[in-house]
């Protein structure tokens, strides 16, 4: 396959998959928030963290895609094209699982906080640790791009 096409596929993966992950996360956590917001609107300001962390996944994808886009004119060898593809795959897979973590833990956090607000500080850990997964993927993807 042409190395230009491979690097473009990498870039497309790095933006599209995080977008879908972010969308699914926001759909799940956003609807859960709307549900508890009707009962206890005072806790919504704390719960917004779930939706914003979900949205951050799309921004990580955007960053990698943006960096790949600026590198595409310099990609002349197959090796560099593969690096671009791998960077795209890393951020894509990382955000899929980070998104899954935030969705599951986030919706449970929202339900649990509505019932017992004092459990928030312990339960939020699941959400933020899931989000940390995406950061790890982002750092490695980023370092790979640095080598192109």
């Amino acid at each position: 396959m042409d190395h230009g096409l491979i690097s473009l596929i990498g870039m497309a993966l790095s933006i599209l998959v995080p977008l879908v992950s972010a969308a699914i996360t926001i759909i799940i956590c956003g609807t859960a928030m709307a549900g508890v917001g009707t009962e206890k609107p005072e806790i919504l300001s704390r719960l917004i963290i779930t939706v914003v962390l979900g949205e951050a996944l799309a921004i990580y994808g955007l960053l990698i895609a943006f960096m790949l886009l600026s590198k595409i004119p310099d990609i002349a060898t197959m090796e560099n094209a593969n690096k671009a593809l791998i960077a795209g795959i890393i951020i894509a897979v990382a955000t899929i699982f980070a998104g899954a973590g935030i969705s599951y833990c986030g919706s449970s956090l929202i339900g649990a906080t509505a019932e017992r607000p004092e459990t928030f500080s312990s339960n939020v850990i699941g959400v933020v640790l899931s989000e940390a997964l995406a950061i790890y993927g982002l750092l490695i993807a980023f370092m790979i791009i640095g080598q192109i």
Partner: protein
Amino acid sequence: MRKLKVIIFEDDVDAVVRSLGEAGTVQFIDMREKLEEWKGVLVPHVVSTEALTKCSDLLSKIEVSFGKLGLKPEELPSVEIPITKESIEEVLARVERKLAELPVEKFTKCSALISRIDQLIEALGVETEELEIEEVTWKKPVEDVLVEIENELSEIEKKAETTGLTNRQVLVDRIKTLAVREEINVGRKLAELRKIVIESERFFAERLLNLKKNVEMARASIEEETKLGDISEDLLTLREIVGKEKQIAEVQEKFVRSTKTIYFEAWVPESNVKEAIERVKKATDGNSIVTDEPPARDEKAPTILKSCPSYMTAFEKLVCAFGYPCSGDVNPIRVLAITFPILFGIMFADVGQGAIFIVIGAILAFLRRRVKLEEAGDITRYLLISGEMFILMGISAIFFGFIFGEFFGPSGFIHPISLGRIGPFYIGGFEPTQEPMKMLRFAILVGAVHLSLGLILRFINEIRHHHYKLAPVPIYWLWLLLGSLFLWAYWGGISNITRWFAEGSLMLAGLVILPLLLILVFTGIAEGFMEGVGFSVEVFAETLSHTMSYGRLMALGLIHSAMNYLFLVLGGVEHGHFPLGSIPLIAIGTILVMIIEGLVVFVHTLRLHWVEWFSKFHTGEGIPFKPFKYT
């Protein structure tokens, strides 16, 4: 914070609670949760449901009276209530008697009569302006006049109903029956009737208006006799008394009792202990046993947060949203007020956008002093109290904007200013988008400093709580954290990890393995061997993952820069020169970036504090001190 333990006679309990409630410095402990300790000796003190029901009953009666008089108790000035030594039952009986004596009924009778008259006049459908009203004079007592008026009104109502004046269908039906039976001309009969009906309507309406005038005069005379202001004040006093008694009864649910005595425990701030004991002694005439003691080792005393300056309100909200600080802990609000803007500024580094933040913050801070916060909506209130936080974040963004050379993105308008270099860590002097690895190292350094601060605070907390066996643990942790960072920097990063274990094995043992072993030993001594093993594994994992997590400072900083760069490219900005045409585009870009990126960066700053930083020293398991006070 001290704990009061009080034993009093059953008869004095109401007076004691009433007196402590006046002081408003005592938080009663729910003894029902501790009943296991006293099994067989003490039982829950059950407040008679009769007293509670009576309270609710009296309160609703008072509310109804307010409604009848057309008064709103919230709008009336507050009243002083004398302290009494009576029991709840005695107070409630007194209130009931007083309520029955109040002349509320006379007022309500007048209002009811007036509304009945108005209804009837409306049903008759007569224009009242043309009617004449006689001058009224009466010399009988007001009560008799009202009875007469009521009788006459009932008579008029009855007549109007039977003759069909208030119900035209009756009239029409009657004429139709007549027309069929006596074969008369319906049209002529109707015309005759119309005349009669109009006359009778006028007659009744005139009569009614006179009655109304009489009632109004009666009302005026009642108002003269008994002033409305006096009644409303009396009602308000009664309402306050019953409200207090209800709270006094409810709070006693937390007490326990033996056959004749009541036992309760309560938290009191140290400065108020003497006063609280005095109050108990005075209310019981000395027939009580009161002791005070500090909280037990594992007992959670409620926390009183020292009031922070108003510009820290937003930071206080951020800390308390995670959890309340424990009693005796270092208050994290003041430290957070410094670190929060710094971390935000690193991710949102931009001179131009920082300046906009300062302007927005100044406007919000100005508005906050003009607008009543209670009346503002939820989001508006949050924004208004965050005015000063916006200013601090703006200042920090400007500072880091200069360091990273950002002015509405990497426009080349400002050149990065270097603040120096510590080993491989560059503090400023580079553009993050051009040299991301330097930015990553800078982010990790900031993370290590931030976490070190958290560990120092943990050390202070352990000392404050007299946990001397655990106190060295944060110091060893700090040793591990800074040691690992040194190791990483010294051997040129993680890519040379094999050298760590070869030439650097001694250094590795001294900087990583030794502190971990010490943590294991000290935690093991304090809490048991297995806890020690678990904790040291946790410390190792946390040191690694939490420091790595600060890599997001780089990631989000780059994203911020990249998003701004996009609009700079679209606008055709080159080498710090902004063409005139680019300004609208830059403005749109700035608004978008400030809203989307601002929110994301804010949440990430919050998350770094809540998870990575707070996990070192702030559990958020404190309970706010809520003394028993009348509301």
